[in-house]
């Protein structure tokens, strides 16, 4: 019996990440989702003050952006294209389950397919990027956190668009790494690292963090950068799930280009 049970356990460990649409044994199922949700509702009352503060901060930031947009017609925060068609839609959601100390971390949200959430959508907060949706049930969804060994995204330096691949080394929940970053100019500590227009699932210009240190990858011209993440994963509460309205078209085009390249 010992061998049998261990066998089942290891079978689960090995197959968990390969089935995309099973939501039975994860935190987005009805049992765990509802327990987490109930507790979240209860806990909410004790956090009203912080929530208020963060909303105020967001409000003032939005006002500032509105002001900037009016006077400079900036294209930095592309929310609509030149014809006025919106490119992104933001679904607000609440974090009901959150891990950040594991080797692979996930976040559970209280919105699911009934609310329009789909697999592969990006998740952000007002502070920065959080992760990508990997599993969806009718009322809950599960997000692969930036703090996950399989999380990958193309990100770059805001100042000059030098791009690299972001991946977590599993060490600290406050830091991540960008590897194989090209170097078009001088790297400066403290530079903002943001998502780029080539990053899938995220709108361009969303903050990832700031550059803490960098070193040259031996044997190549690339740099590895250590990023101080802007999101505090131990205090996640409200997030936005990003729906890219033309994602399907973009993906098909990308697929087409890749096929043509082969």
């Amino acid at each position, binding site marked *: 019996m010992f061998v049998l*049970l261990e066998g*089942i*356990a290891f*079978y689960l*460990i090995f197959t968990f990440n390969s089935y995309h649409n099973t939501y039975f*044994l994860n*935190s987005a199922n009805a049992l765990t989702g509802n327990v987490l949700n109930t507790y979240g509702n209860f806990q909410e009352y004790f956090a009203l003050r912080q929530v208020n503060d963060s909303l105020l901060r967001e409000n003032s930031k939005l006002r500032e952006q509105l002001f900037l947009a009016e006077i400079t017609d900036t294209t930095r925060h592309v929310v609509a294209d030149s014809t006025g068609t919106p490119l992104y839609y933001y679904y607000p959601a609440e974090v009901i389950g959150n891990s950040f100390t594991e080797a692979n971390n*996930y976040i559970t949200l209280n919105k699911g397919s009934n609310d329009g959430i789909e697999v592969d959508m990006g998740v952000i907060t007002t502070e920065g990027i959080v992760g990508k949706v990997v599993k969806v049930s009718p009322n809950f969804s*599960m997000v692969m956190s930036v703090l996950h060994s399989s999380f990958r995204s193309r990100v770059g330096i805001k100042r000059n668009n030098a791009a690299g691949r972001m991946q977590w080394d599993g060490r600290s929940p406050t830091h991540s790494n960008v590897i194989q970053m090209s170097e078009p100019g001088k790297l400066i500590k403290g530079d903002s690292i943001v998502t780029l227009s080539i990053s899938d699932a995220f709108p361009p210009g969303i903050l990832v963090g700031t550059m803490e240190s960098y070193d040259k990858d031996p044997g190549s011209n690339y740099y590895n950068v250590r990023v101080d993440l802007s999101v505090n994963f131990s205090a996640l509460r409200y997030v936005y799930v990003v729906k890219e309205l033309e994602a399907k078209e973009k993906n098909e085009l990308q697929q087409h280009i890749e096929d043509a390249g082969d």
Partner: protein
Amino acid sequence: MQAINWILRFVGLIFLILFQVLVLNKLNVGTYAHPYVYPMFLLLLPFNTPKWVMLPLAFLIGLTIDMFNNTPGMHAAACVAIAFLRPQFIKFYTPVTGYENVKAPSISQLGVIWFALFTLTMIFIHHLLYFFIQVFWLKDLGLVLLKVVFSTALSTMLIVILAFLFASRKTRL
């Protein structure tokens, strides 16, 4: 009496799981210490619990934690292993006077030192397996070992404290 005992145990189990999932998992005690106290339920089962009860129970409890944690199979594997090894360690730690009249591990009957040693051993094995399964490949060996050591220390401390709390409640009953 036996039935009441088991009901109390399962009430305790639900408390332990909720405490683990809703409180401890959200705690940030630094990079190295991630306490897991829910195996306490398995430690406290009566000495004569048969294997066919113990192992599936361990599996289900581990799986419940896994569901909340999105770590399918990892806690289950670690729990089944300690449930499997438990009788050996109970034998190994037999006090000089034997286990006469003692039905289950408890501080009041076997003393703090016995209880702490037993807990430390079982939790160490549980954490060792869990953290190694989590990383799987033997990269970052130092990091994993640090996690095991610090987490084991913290979990053991918490379990002994909880055992004191539970014990005092039982004597009052």
